[in-house]
């Protein structure tokens, strides 16, 4: 169902260069069980994520995943790759619905490496989550850097 990726956490940010990439992670197919389990953990029981008759009556083709389910997996994948102390900023935009049955690929590529006034190096990454049929369901940006 899920591949956590082969990267070992804890590299040095200074070793990253423009074009460095997080090993892609594939997750899927997304099932109703995943969405119900996520709803239970978070406490948000929006019926759009489990009631197919309701969502179809509203013009959707079926149940779709919570945006934060996809964003959360992206966040955890970045943390697993870079190390849990390295995520400084994460911005995500929900571009397309994730439908039941979708298999997703999580990617992040370094756009920029810089050093701030305190001599701390940080890396800015462009993040995407893509479905197998080529839809970009989430786009985003992350900043990695050593924290206190």
């Amino acid at each position, binding site marked *: *169902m*899920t591949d*956590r990726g082969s990267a070992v956490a804890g590299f040095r940010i200074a070793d990253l260069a423009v074009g460095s990439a997080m090993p892609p992670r594939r*997750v899927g197919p997304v099932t109703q069980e*995943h969405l119900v*389990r*996520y709803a*239970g*953990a*978070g*406490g*948000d029981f929006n019926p759009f994520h489990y009631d197919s008759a309701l969502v179809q009556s*509203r013009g959707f083709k079926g149940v779709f995943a919570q*945006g*934060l*389910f996809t*964003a*959360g*997996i992206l*966040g*955890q994948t970045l*943390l*697993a790759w870079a190390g*849990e*102390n390295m*995520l*400084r*900023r*994460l*911005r*995500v*935009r*929900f571009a397309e619905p994730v439908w039941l049955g979708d298999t997703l690929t999580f990617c992040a590529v370094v756009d920029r490496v810089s050093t701030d006034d305190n001599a701390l190096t940080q890396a800015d990454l462009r993040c995407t989550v893509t479905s197998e049929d080529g839809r970009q369901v989430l786009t985003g940006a992350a900043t990695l850097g050593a*924290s*206190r």
Partner: protein
Amino acid sequence: MDQDLLKQAPTEFVFPVEWGKCREFALALLDSDPASPKPDDGGDDPAALLMPAIMPVCAFRYSQDGLPAILRLAQAGLVDRSRLVQGEVEFEFHRRAWSGEQLSVTEKLAKVYDKETSKEVLRFFEFETAFRSLDGEPVCMIRTVNIERRRKDDD
């Protein structure tokens, strides 16, 4: 646009960071590493890291009425929940948070604005949720954008 929306009082509550909840989230997010998050070992190193994904939804569990701000607006009839979609979420992390810690949470509506397309009127609700230690030290800031979509021919 109704600027009175911006006069809504911020919501404040305390968010107790619990290891079991972090672990439940890890499993729900398909994190198969049994060591993540780790239980507090009682020493300086490492307790469970608070998972970022919990923070945007913690109001469901810990706010007084069990609602995040956007659903409170919906309950008050100021937003049509059935027309809401999630737009963006941005996390800015100032430091890590640990299980056993209590965080003070302040959630407020920061901006409301409309955009029009040929077919729809889109109302954007931007919320800022600040997480601080009980001493006031910044831990995390989350900015969320929810969009209410209304077709022009519905009006």
